[in-house]
């Protein structure tokens, strides 16, 4: 548990870090970035919270059970989207040309349009959720073990 100034500033900063990570995840098909990079950014924000508040106080409200549920649901959504276009092949992009996220951009350099990409933005969200939950769980469990107490149950 660090001093009062550090706790107040990290309370304000975690909001901006979360929005920045979500921006990198959502614009994965237009700018450099995507699911893995955005998930790593948000996990570093959780690391800031653990350092500023101490792992015991964070463990009172963020258990590993909830993070495990988040991670498994992200993996299941990813596999469900892969089975969506099973009529042609496995992993077929079945949303290009249809009405949801299905516009086709003009060939060559252009300012990006966010309603393009087919099934890629949904896959970015699923993988981003999974990487976020997985790296936060690893950080939380190791911080708890190093402060001379262990997880119960």
């Amino acid at each position, binding site marked *: 548990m660090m001093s009062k100034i550090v706790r107040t500033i990290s309370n304000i900063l975690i909001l901006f870090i979360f929005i920045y990570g979500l921006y990198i995840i959502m614009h*994965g*098909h*237009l*700018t*450099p970035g*995507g699911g893995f990079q955005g998930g790593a950014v948000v996990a570093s924000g959780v690391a800031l919270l653990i350092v500023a508040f101490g792992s015991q106080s964070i463990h009172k409200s963020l258990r*590993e059970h909830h993070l*495990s549920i988040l*991670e*498994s649901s992200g*993996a299941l959504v*990813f*596999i469900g989207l*892969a089975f969506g276009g099973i009529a042609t092949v496995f*992993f077929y*992009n079945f949303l*290009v040309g249809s009405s949801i996220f*299905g*516009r*086709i*951009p*003009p*060939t060559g350099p*252009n300012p*990006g349009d966010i309603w*393009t*990409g*087919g*099934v*890629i933005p949904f*896959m*970015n969200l699923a*993988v981003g959720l*999974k*990487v976020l939950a*997985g790296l936060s*769980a*690893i950080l939380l*469990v*190791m911080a*708890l*073990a190093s402060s001379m107490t*262990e*997880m*119960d*149950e």
Partner: protein
Amino acid sequence: MRKIALAISLSVFIAFLIAAALLLHPFGYPPSQMDDYIIENTQSETGANNAVTAVVFDYRGFDTLGEVTILFAAVTGVIMLFRKKKKE
């Protein structure tokens, strides 16, 4: 005895590595047939502006599926190793 064997095997290995690094293609002119096709047809087939994301999630989606499985197994292993034994 052990140090002599280590030194001989390590020097042979590093000689192989340096010979392989000098005999590769000249740096800056890679052979590329598959990547020319991907750069030409990304915007019309997948509809994304980012060729790297299209390759990771559309042209090579199986590798991403394998990587998601490895991440899940590693996180499960770490959580399992730090459990407390119940004293009953």
